[in-house]
Structures are given as structure tokens and as C-alpha cells.
């Protein structure tokens, strides 16, 4: 489906927030798709990282928030080390996550985790998951 882009749809504040949280200049991206090719989770994503960056360049805040990409990202930094334009995509994904998490929204609820899961999970799994996916 075509995405309509106009002065109305471009959320400048969204673009600025991503830049300041991530410290990255996403306008450097020239859409080569290396990030998605290197991403181990790309097969599980509904939108490739390349697409997320393009939408972010255009300030399409809603379109970005409708994808699950940043919530499937495992912060493994494969995209970061492979990007030929030197964009630290792991930081961009973190910025996109934080824009939601800082509105006090959680993607996992620690208190609702089954006791069995808590018992078997390594601590580093829980700590890292809560750090990345809760507010």
C-alpha cells in the first residue's frame, strides 16, 4: 500500500528525538539493505530495518510504531558492524523502543511471568529482557 507523505505526516519531533537519543544521523542511510541481510532476526520481522530507517527519515512515527521490528531486535549489533554508511542501527532501534517505553508501556510484564519460566531462565536473560523491553 502506498504511504502518503506530506508536511502533515512528517513528524519533525520524532526525527529529532531519534537523532538525539541515538546520536546517529539516519539521513546517511542509502537503503542498501545490508542491515536486514546481516540481521539474524530478520526472518521473524514484519519490516526490515532498512524500511524502519526510511520511515524514520520521513518522520512517519505512526508507521514505525505499527511494526514489530524494534521489539523483535535482539540488540546483537550485526547491523551496526555491517552498515557501510557507519550508522549504529542498534542505537536507532533502542531510540525507537525508548520512545514507547518512556510512555510507561511495557512489552513484557515481569510480574506475569510464569513461576516455571522464572525458575529456569538464566538471570542475564531476565535482566536483559527487562532492560530492553520494559519502562
Amino acid at each position: 500500500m502506498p504511504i502518503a507523505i506530506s508536511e502533515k505526516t512528517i513528524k519533525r519531533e520524532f526525527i529529532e528525538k531519534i537523532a538525539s537519543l541515538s546520536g546517529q544521523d539516519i539521513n546517511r542511510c542509502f537503503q542498501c539493505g545490508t542491515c536486514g541481510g546481516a540481521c539474524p532476526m530478520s526472518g521473524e520481522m514484519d519490516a526490515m530495518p532498512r524500511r524502519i530507517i526510511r520511515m524514520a527519515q520521513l518522520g512517519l512515527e505512526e508507521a514505525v510504531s505499527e511494526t514489530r521490528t524494534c521489539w523483535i531486535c535482539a540488540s546483537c549489533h550485526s547491523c551496526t558492524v555491517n552498515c557501510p554508511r557507519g550508522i549504529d542501527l542498534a542505537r536507532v532501534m533502542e531510540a525507537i523502543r525508548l520512545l514507547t517505553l518512556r510512555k510507561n508501556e511495557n512489552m513484557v510484564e515481569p510480574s506475569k511471568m510464569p513461576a516455571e519460566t522464572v525458575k529456569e531462565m538464566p538471570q542475564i536473560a531476565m535482566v536483559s529482557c527487562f532492560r530492553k523491553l520494559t519502562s
Partner: protein
Amino acid sequence: MKVAYYPGCTLKTKAKNLEDAALASMKALGVELEELNRWNCCGAVHSLADDDLIHHVAPVRDLVRAMEQGSDKVVTLCSMCYNSLARANLIMRDDEVKRKTINDFMDEEEDYHGEVEVVHFLNFLRDEVGFDTIRAKVKYPLNGLKVATYYGCTLARPRNVAIEPPGGTRLMTDFLDAVGATPVKFADAFTCCGSYQIIANPENAVNVAAGILDCAAKAGAEALVLSCPLCEFNLAKKQGDMIQSGKISKGLPIFYFTQLLAAALGLGKEACRFDLNDKCSVEILKSKNLAMEAVAGIA
């Protein structure tokens, strides 16, 4: 040789085999690891947002403890701890503004400027103990055991904390060579295991982990070696589910590198802790007549 050592939370509970084997091996090699007197969780992951400094305080406090103990380096075993300590250390060493904010916040601690070097155990074995020393002390070489060298993410990325230069895949290979095993390189050696997504999106994480196991098996590996308890969970503990759902056809034995070291040094059951590994890990050692003392009596 006396060296400061940071264990991390998981090694004291769910990954005792990683730590027990390491400590016993160091004792056998004449190295004294001095656990930090007081340590806290490293935070497991590094905060990537520019304005988020508070999460760096935990790993920095651990580094301050090492400095207080008079050590110029701190050795870690868990890959995630290594990554988060090493990255926090670089901020304190290189970023003047963030360093000042963090030091000002940690009112009661001594100021820290990156004085301590964070060293992963594999680097320590190569650079301080020496693979030749290990080779000379190996009692039962792991002859004929074909092991895939799995690094995962946090030992290799980002580049400024990689345990060896980008593109280099010698460290695990040389280690396995020293203990007499046959290293098997495979395409997914640096592919993420799915990490913490095992909690939030378990199906997605298991798919990725199964792909890594399949890749290793197709490369001719009979086992896989790693250094991270989260990778171990996704790649070993989840194998039952993977076989049941048809994602892999059979189990692949998974070992911590420290267990292979302890076994090769001829250490016993309490050191190697193969009782905490999957059944197939014990079976492959038995079938090849390797580490007989360490696997004797484990069903």
C-alpha cells in the same frame, strides 16, 4: 599469579558448570583468581541511548571494586558480563563528559577513569596463561571430538570490545587445539542465538537458535562450545522443544569452554560439572572414551 575476578549473577546459580570448571582449572594451572569482595549485577546489556547514564553505574561500580582491590585487570567468564563491563569501561576512559557525570553521581566511590582493563577468560588463557602451557598440562586430550566454535554476539560486537580483531576467528580455534579437540568453523559462529527474546518472543528466538545448531551440524560438528549462559540456554536447554517441534532432527552436545579445559586437564566430576549439561553431552564423551573420570556415574 593473582588476578581479580568478576563472576556475575548467572554463574552462581544457573551456570555453575561454567564457573566451577574455570576455577578448578585455574587452580590446576597455578593461577589464583580473587573474586571481587563486593560485586553487583553488571546490568547484562549496555545502554545504547545517549541520555541514559544511570544504567552505566552498575558496571562501573564493579570496575571501581576491582580498582580498590589494587588490580589493573578484571577477568570475566560470562560473555554478557564481559561486554557490559568492557563497554562501560570505555565510556569512563574515553568520554570526558559522561565520566564526570557518572563520577559525580557515585558520591561515595573513588573517581574512576578506566584504570582497570576488562579481560575475557579466553584472552586471559591465551595471553597470561598461554596455550602452550595448557597444551603441556593436558592429561587427557579431547582427541577426535569435533567441536563448533561459537562466539555469539557479545564477545565479538561492537568492534571496540571484540575479543579478537574483526574477522579473526583464531581464539576458540587455538583453544580447542590446545586441549586436543578438533575445531570446526561454521557460518553461524557469530550469529545471535536470539538472546533475551527467548522471554518476549520465544518462538522467534528458538527459530534462530535452531538455525545455528543446524548450521553447526551440517559443518560436521559433533558438539558446540560457547562461553555465554544465555546462549547455552537457547542453544542447549531449548533443544528438547526444537526436536519436538521438528526444528532440528537430533540434539547437539553443548559445552562451556571451561568444561573442556577442565576435562582435558584431567579434573574430576566436581570440577567439570557435566551433570549440569544435557544428556547428549555426557553421551558423546562416553562414546569417545573422553573425560572418563569426569563423566563416570552420570546417567
